[in-house]
C-alpha cells in the first residue's frame, strides 16, 4: 500500500470524526430532542462513526484502494502473505490485496443491503398502508399473504429461487432479497396505519373532502415514518448477513466480484495458513451489522419508544 492510500485512509478517518462531531452538534440545536434521545444511547455515537466510515469507504473505494479488487499481484511471491505495511490486511491465495478487496467489498455488501432493504421498505410500506387504511377484505388477503411469506425461512426461499433459475446477477439478487424481506415491515406499518386512520387529524382531512390517497400520503405516512426508519436500520443488517450467508454458500455475489461473504468463503480453506483472508471480512460484517443494530436500537428509543420489532431471520 502506497503513501497515497495511507493518506486516503487518514483522510477518511478525519472525515468520520468530523461527521460524527457534526451530527452530535445537531443534538444541541433547538429541534434536537430526538437526536438527544438518540445520542443518549451509549453505543449510538460509535455506531454512527462505524457506519460513516464504511459508507465513505464504499463510495470512495476506487480512490482509496491501492489495487483493483481482482488484480493478481504476483502469484508466486505474494501468495497468502501476512499483513504488512505494503498490504495492511495481507494478500490472499491469488495474491490479491485483501485491503483493496475489503474496500470494494464494502461497496457490494453495503450496497446490496441498502438497496435490498429499500425495496423491502417500499413494498412493506405500500402493502402495510393499503391493508391498514382500506381494511376489510383487502387487509385480510394481504395479511394472509404475509402469514404465508413469514412461514418460509427466507434463506430457503432464496435458495429455491436460485435452484429454479440457475443463477442470479447482482440486480436480481437485490430484488429477490427485497421481495422476500418486506413481510415483517408490512405488519409493523399496518399496525401503525390502523391507529393513525382513527386519529382526529385524519378525520378532519376526510371531512374536508380529501381523497384516500391524499390522506395517506400527506397525513398518515409521515406519521408512520418512525417505525419504518427503525425497521430499515435493523433490516439492512439482516440483509447484509443474509447476503453474506448466500455468498458463503457460493450462490450470492459471484466471484471475482468481492463481497464480504464470498471473501470469507474464499479464505475458508486456508484458515490455518492464511487466517487474515477470512478474519478481516468477517470482522467487517460483524462491526457494520453491530453498528446498524446499535443505531436501530437508539433510533427506536429516540423515535418510537414503545414499539416491538419482530424480524424474520
Amino acid at each position, binding site marked *: 500500500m502506497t503513501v497515497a492510500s495511507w493518506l486516503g485512509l487518514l483522510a477518511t478517518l478525519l472525515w468520520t470524526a468530523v461527521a460524527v462531531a457534526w451530527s452530535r452538534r445537531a443534538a444541541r440545536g433547538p429541534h434536537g430532542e430526538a437526536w438527544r434521545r438518540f445520542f443518549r444511547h451509549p453505543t449510538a455515537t460509535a455506531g454512527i462513526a462505524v457506519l460513516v466510515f464504511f459508507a465513505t469507504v464504499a463510495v470512495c473505494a476506487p480512490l482509496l484502494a491501492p489495487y483493483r479488487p481482482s488484480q493478481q499481484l504476483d502469484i508466486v511471491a505474494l501468495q497468502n502473505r501476512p499483513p504488512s505495511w505494503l498490504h495492511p490486511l495481507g494478500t490472499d491465495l491469488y495474491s490479491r490485496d485483501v485491503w483493496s478487496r475489503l474496500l470494494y467489498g464494502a461497496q457490494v455488501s453495503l450496497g446490496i443491503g441498502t438497496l435490498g432493504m429499500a425495496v423491502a421498505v417500499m413494498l412493506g410500506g405500500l402493502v402495510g398502508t393499503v391493508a391498514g387504511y382500506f381494511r376489510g377484505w383487502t387487509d385480510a388477503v394481504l395479511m*394472509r399473504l404475509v*402469514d404465508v411469506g413469514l412461514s418460509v*425461512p427466507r434463506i*430457503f426461499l432464496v435458495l429455491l429461487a436460485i435452484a429454479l433459475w440457475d443463477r442470479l446477477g447482482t440486480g436480481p439478487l437485490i430484488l429477490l432479497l427485497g421481495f422476500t424481506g418486506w413481510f415483517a415491515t408490512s405488519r409493523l406499518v399496518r399496525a401503525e396505519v390502523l391507529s393513525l386512520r382513527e386519529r382526529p387529524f385524519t378525520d378532519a382531512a376526510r371531512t374536508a373532502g380529501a381523497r384516500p390517497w391524499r390522506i395517506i400520503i400527506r397525513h398518515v405516512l409521515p406519521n408512520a415514518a418512525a417505525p419504518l426508519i427503525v425497521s430499515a436500520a435493523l433490516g439492512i443488517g439482516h440483509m447484509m448477513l443474509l447476503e453474506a450467508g448466500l455468498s458463503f454458500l457460493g450462490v450470492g455475489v459471484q466471484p471475482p466480484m468481492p463481497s464480504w461473504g464470498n471473501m470469507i468463503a474464499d479464505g475458508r480453506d486456508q484458515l490455518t495458513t492464511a487466517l487474515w483472508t477470512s478474519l478481516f471480512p468477517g470482522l467487517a460484517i460483524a462491526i457494520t451489522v453491530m453498528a446498524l443494530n*446499535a443505531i436501530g436500537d437508539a433510533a427506536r428509543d429516540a423515535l418510537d419508544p414503545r414499539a416491538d420489532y419482530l424480524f424474520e431471520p
Partner: protein
Amino acid sequence: MTAWLLRRLGAALAIVFAVVSFSFVAIHLAPGTPFLPEQGRPINPAAVARLRDEFGLGRPLPEQYVRYLGALARGHLGESFSQRRPVAEAIATALPNTAVLAGAALLIDFLLGIAIGVFQAARARRSSDVALTNATLFLYSLPIFWLGLVLLLVFGQWLHWFPVGGVTDPVLYPNLPLWGKVLDRLRHLALPALTMGLVGAAGTARFQRAALLEALGQDYVRTARAKGLRESAVLVRHALRDALLPVITLLGLALPFLLTGAVLVEAVFAWPGLGKLAADAIAARDYPLVLATTLLASVAVVMGSLLADLFAVLADPRVRMVT
C-alpha cells in the same frame, strides 16, 4: 379451547397449502421440465418414467396440480438429481441429524440466554450489564458461519479439543463401546451446537433482559419488596415468573432462525442434516431436493408458531384466544 385449536389448526393448514401451491407455480414458471433434469444430466430412465406417470407431466395444468398435491400428500417429492434416489429417502436420513443439532442449540440458546438476561436485569446499568449488552449485541451481529469457522479454527485446529466436522469419527466409531459412541457423538455435536446456540443466546438474552426489566417496574414487585422479601426472591419468584412467558413463546418463533442457521452451520461443520442437504442440492441445482427442504422448513415453522401460541394460552389465561 377446542374450537380455538381447530380454527388455529385450520389456519396453519391453509398456510402450508398456500406455500405448496406457490411452489407449484414457481416450478412451472422456471425453465426446464418439472422434476426431471434438463438434457445432459444423467438419471435412471425407469425413474423418469415413474415420475412422468406420478406427476402427470404433459397433462393439462389443473390435473398436474391435483396430482402434485396428491403426490406431496403421500410424501412423494420426486427424484433427487444429484443423489439419484427418492427425495424422501434423502430427507429421512438427514432429518434426525438436524433435529439433534437444533435441539442442542435450542438448549444452549435458552439456558444461556435466560441466565445472561436475568443476570443483566439484576445488575441493570452497572458496568457488568453494559459489558454484557455490548457482548450480546456483537454476538447477535456476527455472521453465524464465520463464528463457526472461528470456533472450528480455535477449538478444532489449534487446541484439538473437538473434531473438525461430521457426526461421528469415520474410523474409530464402529469399534467404540457404547459409552464411547455417545461421547464421540457429543464431541462432534459440541462446536456446531455451540455456534448456533451462542448466536441464539445473544438474542434471547437481549429479549429476556428487556422483559425482566419491564416486569421489575410493575406494582406487584414493589409490593413484594415492601413485604420485606429478599431481592433474589423478588427477582426469581415474582418478576421472572412473569417475564419468562414472552421468552418461552420465543421458543416456537426460534424455528426459522434455527433452520436458517442450520443451512450455514451445517455447511461449515460438514454436518449431514437438512441444511447441508439444501446447500449441497443448491450447488448441484437439484431443485426437487431444495423444494422438499423448503416445504419441510415451512411446515416446521408453522407448527412451531402454532405450538408457541398454544403454550402461551395454556401458560397465561389472560392471553386472548384469537386466530
